C-alpha cells in the first residue's frame, strides 16, 4: 500500500507568522512537500487550529502531485479526513491530480440566502407557524426523504442540466439561475459515471435537508457594515432573510465512496505515494480522473437542484403563512465542497475547496452582473442561533487564496465533547429563551451543534476581512431554526 507515516516535529513548531492574519509552514518542513502550507488566522484562531490535526492534514495536501503555489487553510479550519475542513488547494489541470477526498463526501454542500421585503416586526406571531410549515415541508433529520422521487431519466436531466431543469418544472426562475454559482450547472457532468448505488441513494432525496449541521434558518438583518454594498445586494436592517445549508445528500456521499475506493486501488498504477489514503487521487486528465470529474459535476448539479427545490418549498410556505405577495428573491448560492477548473496565474488549475467558499471580487467575469460593482456574495453562517454574515469577495482573494474564503465558524470541539458539556434540552431552552423558534427532531443533534462547539464567528469573519479575502456587508440574527 502506498502510504507513508508522518513522524517528526509538529507543523505548528515549524510555522512562522507572516502577517497578523497569515501563518506559513515552509515547504522545507517535510521532504515530500511541494509547496508551503498557508493558514489564515490571528493568534487566537491559530491556537485553536493548531490543537487538532488540521495542520498535519494541510501539510499532507501540500505533497500531492501538481499542487501549485500553496495549500491554504481558511480561518475556520479544523481537522477533517484527508483534507482539513476549510482547505483550499489547486492542481495543474494538465499535469496535476483530482482527489475525491479533497472535495469531500457531501459534494457541493453549500449555502444560499433568500431575501424578503418583509420586516421582521410585520412577521409578528406568524413566525412560529412559518417555522412549523418549513419543518413540515422540508424533510430533515436522520430518516426523512423527499416528497419527490425521480426516475433515471429525470435524474439524468438533473445531473446534466442542473437548475435549468427546475425552471422547466416550475421550481426555479431565470433570476435564480443568474444568482447561483455556475448558474446552478457545473459543465462536464457525465451521468454514466454515477453508479447505480449513488442513484439509489439520491433518487428520493431531492428537496431534503439531511442531518448533521445542515439547516434552514429564518433570520433578520441586524447590522449593515457597508451601506452601498448592502443596497446593491438588496439588504435592509430588519428585513427577513432565509439561509439554506445542505448538499448532495446520499448521492454525493456514494459518488465519493465509489471513487475514493477506486482511486485508492489505482495509486500504484499512477506511481503516487500518499501520506494519507483518504487523499487517493488520479491525474485529472486520466480516465479515472475524468470519470470522477464527470460524476462529481453530476452530484454538484444535484446539490444545486436540492437547494433550489428547498427554496421552492420555502417560498410556498411564505405564501401560505405570510401572504401571497411575500416574495423571496435569491441573493446568491455558493458551494463549499467542490472541485472546479479555473484560470489562475495564467493557467488552468483544478481548484479544490473543501469547506471553503469561492469569494470572487468585483472584477471577476464570473461575478454575477448584478453584483459587479461590489463582488460575489459570500455567506458565513455562525453556530446555531449565532446568526450569519453576508460578505462580498475581494479581487485580492485570487492571489491570496485562489479566490476563496471560509464557509462557517468551524467546529472547535468534537460532537462527543459538545454532548458532554450541554444536554440538547438545555440548548433548546437557551435558544427558546432568546425568542428563537427551534424545530429539531433530535436533542442529541441539538447538543452536538450547540454554539460552544464552534469557533467565534465574529472573530473568524474579522480575520477574513483583515486578510483581504472578503469584506463584511451585513450581519443577521436568528429568528427560527429548522435543523437536520
Amino acid at each position: 500500500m502506498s502510504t507513508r507515516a508522518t513522524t517528526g516535529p509538529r507543523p505548528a513548531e515549524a510555522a512562522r507568522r507572516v502577517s497578523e492574519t497569515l501563518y506559513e509552514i515552509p515547504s522545507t518542513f517535510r521532504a515530500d512537500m511541494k509547496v508551503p502550507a498557508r493558514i489564515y488566522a490571528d493568534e487566537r484562531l491559530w491556537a485553536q487550529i493548531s490543537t487538532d490535526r488540521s495542520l498535519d492534514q494541510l501539510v499532507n495536501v501540500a505533497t500531492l502531485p501538481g499542487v501549485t503555489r500553496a495549500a491554504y487553510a481558511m480561518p475556520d479550519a479544523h481537522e477533517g479526513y484527508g483534507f482539513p475542513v476549510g482547505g483550499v488547494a489547486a492542481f495543474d489541470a494538465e499535469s496535476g491530480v483530482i482527489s475525491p477526498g479533497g472535495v469531500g463526501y457531501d459534494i457541493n454542500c453549500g449555502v444560499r440566502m433568500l431575501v424578503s421585503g418583509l420586516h421582521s416586526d410585520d412577521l409578528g406571531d406568524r413566525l412560529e407557524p412559518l417555522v412549523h410549515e418549513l419543518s413540515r415541508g422540508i424533510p430533515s433529520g436522520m430518516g426523512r426523504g423527499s416528497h419527490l422521487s425521480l426516475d433515471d431519466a429525470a435524474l439524468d436531466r438533473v445531473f446534466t442540466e442542473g437548475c435549468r431543469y427546475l425552471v422547466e418544472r416550475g421550481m426555479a426562475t431565470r433570476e435564480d439561475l443568474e444568482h447561483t454559482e455556475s448558474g446552478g450547472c457545473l459543465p462536464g457532468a457525465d451521468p454514466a459515471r454515477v453508479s447505480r448505488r449513488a442513484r439509489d441513494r439520491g433518487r428520493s432525496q431531492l428537496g431534503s435537508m439531511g442531518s448533521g449541521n445542515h439547516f434552514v434558518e429564518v433570520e433578520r438583518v441586524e447590522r449593515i457594515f457597508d451601506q452601498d454594498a448592502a443596497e446593491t445586494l438588496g439588504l435592509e436592517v430588519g428585513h427577513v432573510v432565509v439561509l439554506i445549508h445542505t448538499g448532495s445528500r446520499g448521492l454525493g456521499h456514494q459518488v465519493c465512496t465509489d471513487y475514493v475506493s477506486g482511486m485508492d486501488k489505482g495509486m500504484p498504477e499512477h506511481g503516487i505515494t500518499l501520506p494519507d489514503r483518504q487523499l487517493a487521487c488520479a491525474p485529472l486528465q486520466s480516465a479515472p480522473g475524468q470519470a470522477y470529474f464527470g460524476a462529481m459535476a453530476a452530484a454538484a448539479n444535484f446539490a444545486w437542484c436540492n437547494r433550489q427545490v428547498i427554496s421552492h418549498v420555502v417560498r410556498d410556505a411564505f405564501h401560505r403563512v405570510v401572504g401571497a405577495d411575500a416574495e423571496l428573491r435569491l441573493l446568491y448560492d455558493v458551494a463549499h465542497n467542490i472541485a472546479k477548473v479555473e484560470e489562475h496565474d495564467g493557467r488552468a488549475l483544478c481548484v479544490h475547496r473543501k469547506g471553503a467558499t469561492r469569494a470572487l471580487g468585483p472584477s471577476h467575469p464570473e461575478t454575477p452582473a448584478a453584483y459587479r460593482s461590489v463582488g460575489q456574495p459570500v455567506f458565513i453562517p455562525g453556530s446555531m442561533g449565532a446568526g450569519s454574515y453576508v460578505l462580498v469577495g475581494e479581487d485580492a482573494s485570487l492571489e491570496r487564496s485562489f479566490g476563496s474564503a471560509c464557509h462557517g465558524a468551524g467546529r472547535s470541539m468534537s460532537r462527543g465533547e459538545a454532548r458532554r458539556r450541554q444536554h440538547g434540552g438545555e440548548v433548546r431552552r437557551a435558544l427558546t429563551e432568546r425568542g428563537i423558534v427551534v424545530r429539531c427532531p433530535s436533542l442529541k443533534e441539538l447538543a452536538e451543534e450547540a454554539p460552544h462547539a464552534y469557533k467565534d464567528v465574529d472573530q473568524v469573519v474579522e480575520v477574513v476581512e483583515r486578510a483581504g479575502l472578503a469584506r463584511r456587508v451585513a450581519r443577521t440574527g436568528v429568528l427560527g431554526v429548522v435543523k437536520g
Partner: protein
Amino acid sequence: MRTRRGARRSGVQRVEPVGRRVEGTPGDRPDLWSNRSGYAWVDHTSEATLRLRGPTFAALLEEAARAFVSLVPGHLGGDGPEADDDDDAASGAWRELTLEEGDAASVLVGWLNELVYLAEVERWVPTEVALEAGVDEQEDVMSTGPVRVRARGRTLEQPFVLVKAATLHGAKVRSRSGHLEAEVTLDI
C-alpha cells in the same frame, strides 16, 4: 431487542449492541478492553472515529456492525424514532453480501460502507453476521478474493442516513497482544 454476548453458532455472531459498548479506548481502559471484543467511539473534531478490538477479523466485522447499529435512533445511544421491534422482522432471511477484495483496512471500510448503503436505501441493519469466505487470518488478514459475509437483520421504519461514509483516513487493522485492533473514521 434480544441480546447474547459472545454468542457463537457456526461462526454466526449476533451484533445487537447492548452490553458490548466499551467506553474509552484500549489505551486508557485496558481493564475493559483486555481479552474481549468491543468497540469505542473516539473524539474527532468534526467526524466520528471508531476503534474496534477482537480476536479475529470476523470479530472486527461483527463489532463494526454492532457499533454502526448503535447509532441508529432507538438503539443504544440513539434518541429518535424506534426501529421496528417486531421479532419476525428481526429474524429475516439470510442474505449474502460481497465486499471487494483488498487489505484488511479497506475491507473493513468497505463493510461499513455496505452497511451505510443498506441502512439508507433498504432500511436494513444486521442482527447476525457470519464471515463466509475471502479472508485468510494467517496472511495478515489480507483478503484472498472478494469477501463474502452472510447476514440477516431487521428493517427500520425509516432510512438511516446519519453516516455519510466510512473513510480510509487513518484506517488500520493491526495485531496486538494476540488480538486485532482497528480504527476507522466515519463522516457524519
